[in-house]
């Protein structure tokens, strides 16, 4: 928020958090998650229920997967000091592209997946180019792109369309024990993003671009290319989420765009400790942030909380949690650590 929080010194910490002596933001996220789990568990127990019953656990995990895909992608763009407000529309678009291309034919499943992901990547590419080459602010660029996709969806599709073969519906419904396959896939995608950010040059560049665009450019980072890559990956993640929707619904549905995935995913990313102003954060934190929201959803559901009260609580909890992290980020002690990890991140970069 304040430009004074040391804009020039923010460099990646995703890799180095484990090496710290005291709590980094990712640890706080997971502490908060545990805290919320305990409180929710006790509240449910008082009412005579069990939050950790298999049904509730799988409900919780199912709730993580859809938002998880979108939020992991969103993390990449937020790290680059960008954001993507078009993800909800991309999810809806890809659910329809996937379902209509599959058209109920099991042999066309792969075609559907490829078509949906190709379209998603295309939208991400355009987003990235508008932002980096045309210098349109990401907020407006992706808001505008969202409107464009919405116009296309409303004009072209008159409601749910397409048919997903049963073979692909298993992606939405199969579970291994209490763990849905979709959650496992989401975690794999998150792991891939984690590796990207902590082990590859492109990942370091994302931190650099988000930390300080000018410094990154002067250091020889191809900032435009990095930003475009982040947006393409973000849209791809949204595309996977769209395929998940198609698998769960057995068809594509345009109205998915009204679920509020855009703002929810940004909330999850920030809840996960990633700075909205880029350059600092981690996918691991985002997964924690998504889990916090899913635990809240499940607990509200089991406790039969009034749906409007849920909104109030969500709003308060999001603000409170971010206020908590923000306090740590202005703590002078953590600032020293940031200088420390800057060095380690740079070394990591040399190795890669």
């Amino acid at each position: 928020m304040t430009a004074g929080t040391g804009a020039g010194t923010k460099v990646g910490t995703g890799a180095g958090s484990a090496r710290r002596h005291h709590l980094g933001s990712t640890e706080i996220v997971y502490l908060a998650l545990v805290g919320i789990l305990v409180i929710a568990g006790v509240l449910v127990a008082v009412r005579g229920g069990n939050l950790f019953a298999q049904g509730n656990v799988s409900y919780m995990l199912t709730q993580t997967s859809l938002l998880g895909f979108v939020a992991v992608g969103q993390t990449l763009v937020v790290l680059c000091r960008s954001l993507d407000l078009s993800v909800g529309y991309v999810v809806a678009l890809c659910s329809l592209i996937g379902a209509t291309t599959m058209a109920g034919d099991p042999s066309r499943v792969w075609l559907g997946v490829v078509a949906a992901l190709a379209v998603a990547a295309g939208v991400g590419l355009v987003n990235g180019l508008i932002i980096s080459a045309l210098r349109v602010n990401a907020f407006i660029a992706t808001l505008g792109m969202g409107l464009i996709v919405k116009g296309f969806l409303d004009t072209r599709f008159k409601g749910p369309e397409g048919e997903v073969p049963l073979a692909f519906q298993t992606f939405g419904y199969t579970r291994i024990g209490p763990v849905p396959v979709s959650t496992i896939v989401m975690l794999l995608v998150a792991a891939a993003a984690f590796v990207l950010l902590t082990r590859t040059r492109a990942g370091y560049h994302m931190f650099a671009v988000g930390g300080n665009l000018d410094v990154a450019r002067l250091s020889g980072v191809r900032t435009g290319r990095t930003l475009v890559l982040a947006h393409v990956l973000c849209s791809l993640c949204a595309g996977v989420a769209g395929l998940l929707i198609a698998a769960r619904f057995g068809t594509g549905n345009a109205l998915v765009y009204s679920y509020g995935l855009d703002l929810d995913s940004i909330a999850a990313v920030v809840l996960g400790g990633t700075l909205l102003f880029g350059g600092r954060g981690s996918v691991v934190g985002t997964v924690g942030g998504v889990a916090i929201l899913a635990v809240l959803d499940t607990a509200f559901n089991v406790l039969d909380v009034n749906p409007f009260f849920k909104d109030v609580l969500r709003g308060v909890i999001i603000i409170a949690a971010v206020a908590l992290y923000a306090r740590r980020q202005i703590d002078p002690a953590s600032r020293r650590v940031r200088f420390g990890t800057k060095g380690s991140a740079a070394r990591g970069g040399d190795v890669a």
Partner: protein
Amino acid sequence: MTLTAETSRSTARQWRERLLSGGSWTVLALLVVVLVVIVVINPSFAEPVSLMAFAKKAAPLVVLAVGQYFVIVSGEFDLSVGSLVGAQVVIAARLMDGDEALTWPVLGLMLVFGLLVGLVNGLVTTLLRVPSFITTLGMMLVLFGAIRLWTGGAPTGALSESFRVLGRKGFPDVPGQFQVPYALLVALVVVGFAVLLMRRPFGRSLVAAGDNAVATAYSGASVWWLRTRAFLLSSFLATVAAVLIGGFAGVTAQVGQGLEFMAITAVVLGGVALGGGRGTVVAAMVGALALEALFTLFNQLALPSTIRPAVQGVIIIVAVAYAARRRRT
């Protein structure tokens, strides 16, 4: 003779360069082009009655855009204004329930409530250092839920006739004839007041805080209080907009939805930089007018309802890209 020709030529060049150089002039050009196209398609739009109807409709967005301008130019966002407009209209309807005598007390209460929301937004953002995107997103959820919790899900009550005068009526008060809507006067007052405010030290410091908060702090200004005041202004103007919108169309369950994005789009269309420090309040107003004119144009073109968002998306991206052309080379 030659001298005047030279001067006029150079002024013409200046104007051309201004128009081509992007920034706030782009949006003015956009507004003019859109209005001209509307008039060409439907000459009756240029009649005073139609223009006044347009002004009445556009006034709330202008007011909201001015409020959003203060926040954006100081380097922040206010996503809560749409929910706040909705909340205020519903509060007003429920509390006054059509009773004329309660109009002024309820207006007073709305003012207090609006300022309270602004104060919370501002203090959480500045003192607790929560990014304003998140603060106001949270506030949006809280207001949305709380207001429905309070009314059981759907608005109850009714707005009094005197409450609705500002948004609905004008003078002379003859339906269907030429009238100057009160909403237009409110919007003009708001814009005038905003222009004056931006010329005062407060306005200059606000822009400075958006441009470089650290330098502004070193220069002795208290950045947190500047920004908090911006949020107070935004919430206050959202309350004014609520009075206009509630007056214009009464209470519906959907009132206010999506207005935050409209207001931000209007401000950015006006060439005000997200992230702060650049742009004028008049340009924000022109942005709001351009956006409303665009909606009117879609209607006049009888463009299918469903394709409109796509065209809107293309136009705002292209307009902002065009305005951004030379900014940072």
